[in-house]
């Protein structure tokens, strides 16, 4: 096994163990904190794919902002830990069936798709290239998204100012 495969296995284990903890923790705070290794593992997988920019954004947004937001909301809610909430309901067989079907579907697709040979050297994947592709081929999607984000930023300022 070479270094890349070793690193991939370690990161995949981190993601899977973290994910299992997120799902199976009875304590909501534990579940939210377990998101951290899961998301960091995904960031590590991006690094393996030479996508450093996406990895950094993944940590900044998902670990640094979204997990904090989730924790914040849990801690501000009464009965925060959710220990008294039942984790399973009577729909377990149904959920199992749906998940099984999804796995079967993915498996079939993965086996049927003719995977081409590795496609030569990687395209340059640095922040500059990402920026250029945002502003040239994908400019419409990018502008619409940034408009949404700008609107929410301005909205936050307006809401903060109204209290006076």
């Amino acid at each position, binding site marked *: 096994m070479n270094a890349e495969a070793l690193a991939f296995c370690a990161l995949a284990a981190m993601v899977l163990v973290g994910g299992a903890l997120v799902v199976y923790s009875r304590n909501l705070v534990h579940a939210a*904190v377990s998101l951290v290794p899961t998301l960091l593992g995904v960031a590590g997988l991006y690094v393996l794919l030479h996508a*450093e920019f996406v990895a950094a954004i993944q940590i900044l947004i998902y670990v*640094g902002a979204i997990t904090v937001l989730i924790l914040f909301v849990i801690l501000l809610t009464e009965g925060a830990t959710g220990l008294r909430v039942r984790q399973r309901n009577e729909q377990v067989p149904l959920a199992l069936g749906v998940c099984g079907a999804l796995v079967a579907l993915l498996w079939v697709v993965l086996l049927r798709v003719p995977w081409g040979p590795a496609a030569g050297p990687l395209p340059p994947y640095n922040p500059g290239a990402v920026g250029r592709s945002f502003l040239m081929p994908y400019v419409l999607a990018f502008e619409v998204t940034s408009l949404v984000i700008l609107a929410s930023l301005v909205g936050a300022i307006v809401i*903060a100012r109204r209290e006076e």
Partner: protein
Amino acid sequence: MGLGGLLSAVWQVELVRMVVLAAVVFTFLAVGGALFLVLAERKISAWIQARVGPKHVGPHGLLQTVADTLKLLYKENIVPHRADRVLFSIAPILVAVAALLDWVVIPFAPGWVVRDLNVGILYFAAVSSLTVIGILTGGWASNNKYSLLGGLRSAAQMVSYELPLAFSLLLVATLTGTLSTVRIVEAQPYPAYLYPSVAVAAVVFLVAATAEANRIPFDLPEAEAELVAGYFSEYTPMRFALFQLGEYGSLLASSALFTTLFLGGWKGPFPLPWLGPVGNGLVWFLLKTYAVVFFLMWVRWTYPRFRIDQLLGLSWKVLLPVSMMNLLVAGWLVVVVR
């Protein structure tokens, strides 16, 4: 070299290098950050308040923090009744490790950087945002209402101030056209017509970094008078020390990043004799960094603490609009003048 370069080199060598560098950086943090800065803080606060400060251990009290650390190592670790044991012990480690990770992209001298990432300052912003998770979980796991309040305040504060901080980083990236810390240093000094923009960004960065480091006048998460000591009220010896290490480590890292972005990093006004380029760079870099640290300590012992609403208001209503306008003006300048 990108992060992915880790795999193209021989990986066993990289692994050894990683462990050695982590040990070196951690030692620098523990000695240069925690030990020295706590002593400096006590001496400077004493000087500002016309006191003497620590005096008895070692010459002029120089060994005071070493003695304090030894004492902390000897004391018993206490976990409060009904605290969450696992999270309680993970939280301080998370805070210390986040402070350690900051240092990967800081260039000390030409060629002296752990790794020159092509997403350098973005990486810095990303890993320094990990601190808040440690503080939040530490505050919650202590099973103490004051700790929880401290943790929540800290989360609100850090999330609010991350935005102006990011805008300052964005401005520097716009001006220099790169995210790599080494290339940013190489691109300085900035041309004169950009000075106003850079100055505004520098002030915003300094204010936001003080708030991120939870220091007076923004130290609400640990306001003694209202919250006992905030998120680390319940923490005893070595775990408390890890929180302190994280706090002073990120203070030092913020100062180092300020030096890198706005003060020209390792570049000095004139070359020093006999030192060579690396020695020169190291001396100038450390001088500038500790000057910024001194400035932050000076502020801490001069100004009173804000109220929480004033604190959040400052970020959302002043710093954010100002830095957005600044970015607009700087972008216009860069495009038009160039």
